[in-house]
């Protein structure tokens, strides 16, 4: 099968009866089997996927298709609750949890006829940027440095979602992004990752990490697919009070790569001596390219950028400490017997949560405690407001903002910094976007000297996903990035 299998191209093949959904699904299941070493999937829905594919083929025969993309197999981050399919959040505490309900986003995919191949590995409760915090072990990046055979991190938390798209273990996938969890792994794996505006996509049925920041989005091979999948998953949901009533656009149909006259901002605060030369080079090249294509490049300032990470690491853990309180061993999930209620709580949660999750629960509990609340939580919220207004000001001057997605390309699993704060720096370019509730996309631009993908990030104003996709599509069309990882796991 061609590596460039996309939602768009496969829809054509299916339409022309060049392939059936069952054949396509079987092919991907075979890829998954052969790619087990990558550890992308927590659960493979072999049987269900094949049954669903057959049903799709029947719908095609009876001309009763749910959408143009009916029958195309995708992967789902193991954070979306899926009816009858184990949903773990990559945590021991939920390792036996089978929901009897379907998240709005996955229901939307089902309504479009997409086939779920299974549940993709991620950092535990989406907390991490290397996928190492998963109870089910690290996901391996399909990419390797030309200079070393050592395994690399795929990024996180949607590491499985990004790696699976990159290695053809699914056509496209669903991820979630709280501080960069879609864009950072997309950047590390040469894929396109889109985090929609806060409220664009329903959070109902997604295991919550930090409610005011969480947003689901697509990870795909290209920008067109990102538009297609966003069309499918987005929209108002009355079951989510924070879901926006703003009408959604027809992103794919309205995709228009003409950027002439647009203003693209380059924020000075994102510049750093520590940025690898190849990343800086890609960033500059991309700016030049956009200029060549008719946009105006504008230097802008987002003065509170450097306060974003500390604010994020107060707000996100605060919300998480409360969101994760429900995993108490009483109603579902893991329970370790105790002498009394408190003992049961302690044993269950000690045993059920990994170190990073515990660390964030502790931080979150601390910053919300009486006596510390004003100094930490309230202050972080003030910073968040300042960051939001930075962007409000910026978007008075520019249509979109261009930055690197990550401060580095993928690094070795063994080299992950032991200092968590060092690790948190992975998200330094992506976190402000979540705090401001804006849409952001990471697209692959080039490979570095080690042949590892470099991702660039575009940001637009709230609910301007169309503009975001248009600019991204312009870059994609121009550079025609077509690098794929060598499939070392097949050898």
């Amino acid at each position, binding site marked *: 099968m061609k590596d460039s299998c996309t939602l768009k191209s496969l829809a054509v093949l299916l339409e022309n009866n060049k392939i059936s959904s069952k054949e396509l699904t079987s092919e991907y299941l075979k890829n998954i089997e052969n790619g087990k070493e990558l550890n992308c999937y927590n659960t493979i829905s072999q049987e269900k996927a094949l049954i669903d594919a057959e049903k799709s083929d029947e719908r095609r025969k009876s001309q009763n298709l749910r959408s143009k993309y009916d029958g195309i197999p995708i992967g789902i981050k193991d954070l*979306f*609750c899926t009816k009858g399919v184990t*949903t773990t*959040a990559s945590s021991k505490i*939920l390792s036996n*949890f089978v*929901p009897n*309900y379907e*998240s709005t986003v996955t229901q939307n995919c089902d309504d479009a006829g997409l086939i779920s191949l299974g549940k993709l590995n991620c950092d535990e409760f989406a907390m991490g940027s290397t996928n190492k915090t998963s109870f089910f072990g690290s996901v391996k990046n399909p990419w390797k440095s030309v200079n070393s055979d050592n395994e690399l991190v795929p990024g996180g938390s949607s590491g499985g979602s990004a790696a699976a798209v990159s290695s053809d273990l699914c056509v496209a996938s669903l991820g979630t992004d709280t501080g960069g969890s879609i864009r950072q792994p997309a950047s590390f794996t040469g894929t396109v990752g889109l985090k929609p505006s806060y409220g664009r996509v329903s*959070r*109902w*049925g*997604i*295991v*919550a990490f*930090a*409610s*005011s920041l969480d947003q689901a989005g697509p990870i795909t091979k290209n920008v067109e697919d990102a538009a297609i999948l966003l069309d499918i998953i987005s929209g108002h949901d*009355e*079951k*989510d*009070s*924070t879901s926006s009533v703003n009408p959604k656009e027809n992103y794919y149909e309205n995709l228009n790569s003409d950027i002439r006259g647009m203003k693209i901002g380059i924020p000075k605060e994102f510049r750093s001596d520590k940025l690898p030369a190849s990343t800086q080079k890609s960033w500059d090249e991309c700016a030049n390219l956009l200029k060549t294509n008719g946009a105006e490049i504008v230097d802008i300032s987002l003065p509170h950028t450097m306060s974003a990470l500390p604010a994020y690491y107060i707000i996100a853990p*605060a*919300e998480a*400490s*409360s969101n*994760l*309180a*429900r995993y*108490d061993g*009483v*109603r*579902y999930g893991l329970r370790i017997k105790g002498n009394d*209620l408190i003992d049961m*709580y302690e044993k269950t949660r000690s045993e059920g949560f990994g170190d990073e999750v515990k660390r964030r629960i502790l931080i979150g*509990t601390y910053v*919300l*405690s*009486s006596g510390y*609340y004003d100094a930490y*939580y309230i202050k972080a919220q003030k910073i968040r407001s300042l960051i939001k207004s930075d962007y409000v000001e910026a978007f008075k001057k520019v249509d979109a903002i261009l930055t690197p997605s990550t401060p580095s390309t993928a690094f070795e699993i063994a080299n992950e910094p032991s200092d968590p704060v060092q690790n948190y720096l992975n998200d330094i370019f992506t976190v402000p976007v979540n705090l401001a509730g804006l849409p952001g996309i990471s697209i692959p631009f080039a490979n570095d000297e080690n042949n590892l993908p470099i991702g660039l990030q575009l940001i637009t104003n709230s609910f301007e996903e169309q503009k975001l996709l248009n600019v991204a599509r312009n870059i994609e069309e121009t550079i025609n990035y077509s690098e794929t990882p060598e499939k070392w796991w097949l050898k």
Partner: protein
Amino acid sequence: MVAQMIEGWNLVIGIEIHAQVNSKSKLFSSSPTDFGSKPNSQVSLIDAAMPGMLPVINKFCIEQAVKSGIGLNAKINKKSIFDRKNYFYQDLPQGYQISQYKDPIVGEGFVEIETENGQKKIGVERLHLEQDAGKSLHDQDPNFTFVDLNRSGIALMEIVSKPDMNSPEEAVEYVRKVRSILRYLGTCDGNMEQGSLRADVNVSVNKPGNELGTRCEIKNLNSFKFIHAAIVYEAKRQIRLIEQGDSVNQETRLFNTQSGETRSMRSKEDAHDYRYFPDPDLLPLTLDDDWIKGLQDSIPELPDQIKERLINEYSLSSYDANIIVSDKATSEYFEDVVKNRNPKLVTTWVTGELFSILNKKNLIIEDSPITSKQLGELVDNIENGKISNRQAKEVLEEMCESGKGALEIIDEKGLSQISNENEIESLVDNVLNSNPENVKKYKNGKDKLFGFFVGEAMKLSKGKANPKIVNDLIKKKLSQ
């Protein structure tokens, strides 16, 4: 006894009322709220806090809270915020209760109560909305506690008073008054036995002129009797401590309904740090002026207004009017009966005879076996002299048993009063002629025998004679 004990001390009481919102579904989910259903039969995914579940505000509950606020003469806050109150307990599925902390939906207001010294205004600090927790069942199994989540997520209004009450009686009056207002509004059924309305009472004592004392909170009182008893006990306990030279510890206490004592539940030091913060799953609640205005216009006449009207229209005493308006059903019943009738007579028959029958049968007025129409008919027959008061009581009792109308019973029992003067005169003559000795004694000054003659005459008429005419005739004949 109590008064003696408390004399010389000043009592300061503040009350938090938890009133269940009268609503078919829960505050953030569509689960039903019926009382007494099979355990865990009214639990949605949201109420059980399944992963990924999100709360959605039930607009009706918001409406009920705002109406209650209007009824408490309180400020309605156009912007309010739902917060999470974090603590772990088996019957709290989310690990937090969604409540309102800094920005409640209703701000300051007041209610007026009747006290020994007349009207008194009791300040309301705030009213906020919150979720109820589930129920732990400790008596189902020797080794396990069971949890029933039917209550989990039901909407409660917490109404916090200012520390404006100074006696157990005032405290009870305040809770009565708030309950009555909520029932008039239909925002809470006020059923204390079922736990629809419960009170946490804060009590402190001090010597007049001194600083306020340290307060203790007594949790979860679900009857007026318990509220009164708990305050009395607690005040005495605190006074005793201070008089012994000890000090009162700020703490939360539980009232034992068997022994009538309070005991310590947890001290201030053990108090939870609830780590309140705004619930990120819910946007701030904003209300617009027109919507609030619409609710204001829909508010029915409330007890204070009705009371005033009863006093003006029917010249009722403040005391009687108070009794009648204390309950919506009673005031409606009363107004049905009193229309075009003698208010004084109707008041007596509603608050006296009818209440005594209801009390005896342990019924509330909504379930009265005697309809307002039936009672009206009875009053008419007293008013037009057809039956005496005493006969009317008999009719009422029969009415209660058989459900028949007053006239029917009067006919059946042959109760109709004899008001024919000639007929009564012959009865009276009969009595006086048969008792010449007593007539002589009476005439010699033994006035008390008057009652004896009346009694005999009535007996002779089998109770049917109009007592007034009997009295008049006997008086007339004996003075001849």
